[in-house]
């Protein structure tokens, strides 16, 4: 009984960790990197105000390039 409960908890825990990992990976995938002439770089991750303005424009460009 105790053993099956531990197995069940392990499975649930693994599923939660996997879901969190996948969500984090997806969030990190959407980003914008800006490079300036002086060598500086600005990285905007998904959720930041700057990225939220650039990401829809990038999606629009991708759609136009693919003719969708």
């Amino acid at each position: 009984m105790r053993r099956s409960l531990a197995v069940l908890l392990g499975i649930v825990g693994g599923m939660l960790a996997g879901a969190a990992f996948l969500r984090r990976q997806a969030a990190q995938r959407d980003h914008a990197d800006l490079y300036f002439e002086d060598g500086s770089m600005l990285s905007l991750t998904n959720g930041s105000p700057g990225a939220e303005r650039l990401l829809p424009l990038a999606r629009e460009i991708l759609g136009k390039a693919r003719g969708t």
Partner: protein
Amino acid sequence: MDAQQALADLTEISSQIQAAVVFDDKGKVTGSTLADPGRSAELVQAASELLSTAEGLKSGNSVLTQLEVATREGSVFVVRDGPTSIVATTGGNPTVGLVLYDLKSALRSINAKPAPARKPAARKKTAAASKKKTAARKPTTRKKPDAP
């Protein structure tokens, strides 16, 4: 180099680039991998908007030279070199450094001034001939007769 030729070379070198359009600071398309000119113009309009939005996000005075926006659907790259810019799209997870390098090389080849024309070969001949003449004019050294 012609923008269209540079784009042909670019797509041959980089298999990651799906579409690319070259445009000037006035938004005029100078070269495109897309067959439809209307779509190229729309792409340039959106890329110009992307550039101006990105310019608005900077904090210092430095000029924005290149940007990469990555989404789940793919990535968008814009590289600027003087008045000429290039916008390119790739699939998901591209090799960012490599794509940027290829785009910069393409822009450099477009903006490169043609090599100055070689001097005509006839001039070289003249120079050689004048050398010969000079050599011919050189007085020959005469041996002084031995003193008695």
